[in-house]
């Protein structure tokens, strides 16, 4: 607002100054925004992870300090909780990603993520997209991330450790008859893991067999009758939330009582396990497989 004593000339001069200052600020701001890949002072790597399992891979490769952005669902290892958040897997926030001035953004091969990486590529930011939907792809993904961040050796060590753990399980179950496993991801409506999932792979890796046959859906909703038809020996339910495991275990008894003729329920072999562990294809694959193997082994 103009002062009464002020002349128009003064006001004009002041406006010019304000404009000049604003443009300089804007210019600097833009420089920062349009060159997000410009190395920071020490030239260190700055990596943003767009998915919880990618975060786990990065930490497993020893990149604790290089990770500068993770999703809101990245809760393992615990250090990941302290990193800046860039939104969620499904709704990444491009501004939050850029604010981390990343030298590399690692994303999964999903439409929402690809949209973001294309945007980042246009701005000159390096990205790496990996597809991790099977165990083999997990190994490939770890390797290509290792290559991209210059940690090939660590990546190879990690892969051979996971493969060795898988082999040990494989030989230990060689002579057991396969148990039928129903993997329930949701109760209302009843939805299970189908045969085209990595969960199916994990079940088979520990000597089980998916109780549900091939379906059109990847995670098919099924009717109660299909639970009877599947006739599972074991029912496994990953907990939806890190803190909901106990509550889910408690309500499982009541919920599955309707299926009391099914062997899994009759023999009290319904297990609620850590969802964050088993629902991610991560470097903790050995732990996931061990956890599932435990469910199948208990008699």
């Amino acid at each position: 607002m103009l002062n009464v004593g002020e002349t128009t000339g003064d006001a004009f001069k002041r406006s010019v100054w304000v404009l000049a200052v604003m443009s300089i600020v804007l210019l600097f701001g833009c420089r920062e925004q349009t060159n997000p890949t410009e190395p920071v002072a020490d030239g260190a790597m700055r990596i943003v992870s767009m998915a919880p399992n990618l975060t786990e891979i990065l930490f497993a490769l020893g990149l604790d300090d290089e990770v500068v952005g993770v999703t809101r669902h990245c809760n393992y290892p615990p250090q990941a909780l302290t990193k800046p958040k860039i939104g969620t897997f499904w709704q990444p926030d491009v501004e939050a990603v850029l604010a981390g001035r990343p030298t590399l953004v690692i994303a999964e091969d999903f439409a929402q993520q690809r949209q973001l990486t294309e945007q980042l590529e246009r701005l000159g930011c390096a990205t790496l997209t990996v597809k991790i939907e099977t165990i083999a792809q997990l190994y490939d993904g770890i390797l290509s991330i290792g290559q991209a961040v210059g940690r090939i050796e660590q990546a190879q060590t990690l892969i051979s450790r996971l493969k060795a753990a898988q082999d040990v399980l494989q030989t230990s179950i060689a002579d057991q008859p396969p148990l039928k496993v129903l993997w329930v991801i949701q109760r209302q409506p009843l939805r299970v893991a189908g045969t085209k999932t990595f969960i199916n792979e994990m079940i088979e890796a520990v000597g089980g067999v998916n109780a549900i046959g091939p379906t059109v859906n990847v995670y098919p909703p099924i009717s109660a009758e299909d639970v009877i038809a599947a006739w599972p020996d074991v029912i496994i339910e990953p907990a939806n939330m890190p803190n909901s495991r106990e509550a889910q275990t408690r309500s499982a008894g009541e919920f599955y009582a309707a299926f009391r003729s099914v062997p899994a329920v009759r023999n009290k072999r319904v297990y609620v396990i850590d969802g964050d562990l088993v629902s991610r294809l991560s470097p903790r694959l050995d732990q996931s497989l061990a956890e599932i193997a435990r469910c199948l082994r208990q008699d």
Partner: protein
Amino acid sequence: MDLTPNKLWIRILAATAFLFAAIAVCLLIGSVPVSLFDALRGPTHDGQSNIPYEIIVHYRLPRMVLAAIIGAALAASGCVFQAILRNPLADPYILGISSGAGLGTLAAVLLGWSWTVFGMSAMMLTAFAGALATTWLVWGVGRAAGRANITGLLLAGVVVNAFLSSVIMFLTSIARADQVQTTMFWLMGSISEMQQVEVIAASGLLTAAGVGVLLRLGPSLNMLSFGADEAAALGLSVSRTCAAAFAVAALMTSLAVCLGGLVGFVGLIVPHAVRLVAGPDHRQLIPVSALVGAAFVVIADTVARVVVAPAMLPVGVVTAMVGGPFFLILLVRYMRNLHWQVK
């Protein structure tokens, strides 16, 4: 087209026979091949539980009865909404019940409520509460707009529907993926087997009572089909008839929505189909629609169970996909019967 008591009874009996035939056939269809002969051996066989018996009696039959109740409630209330709103596009969801119930369900899912009361889940009860609350709101606003003012009521319904839908969209956009899945499946209509026998019996009785009351209102609804002024001139208390029919139909719709989510299309096409084939007299339209609607949802639900087995489809998808073309065929075949008023 005169409706004699004989004709009425013959048609009701035919529709009843159709319903029971549909249930009998659908009982034997499922993802598991089950022989009736095995099932008839009773609950236990050779000291073990008899699985065919269990599948038919504990899973398929309750689910089918539930499907029939939902179909009957939606089709009968669809007739009534079309009559009191004097609008051929009216269906039981037109006045916002669907979005109110949807919001109730979504709230239960987002709050993580997993308690049950008499075998009814939190989702079902909040859906019922949401449907009733929306009905009251729309009725209140509609009445404020003017007595027996149908346009006011319709507009209030449309606007409340649009508003609540946007709230649903907002909540969906911030919900977790698994919560969205649960809600979406419900919004597409899904009938589950997990029902207490008491709940099914109570719902069945309520629906039967509702159809009974609507049937009593049949002659008044017939008069109403000439228009509100003409009906008033014939000595009908238009606003009282509308209020009573509206309350009963809304209650029945809320019940159906609570039991099976938003099963679409039944409340719209079944009354029209019956009207095309058998004529517009409400004394006949209401009971025959209820029976045909029941059979229709029973068949649609069976298709939903088996067509992609062992997975299943939401029943609402099937009612729309099967019902749409079927209705078009009827429309072409019986076009000359297309009239509203009772001659």
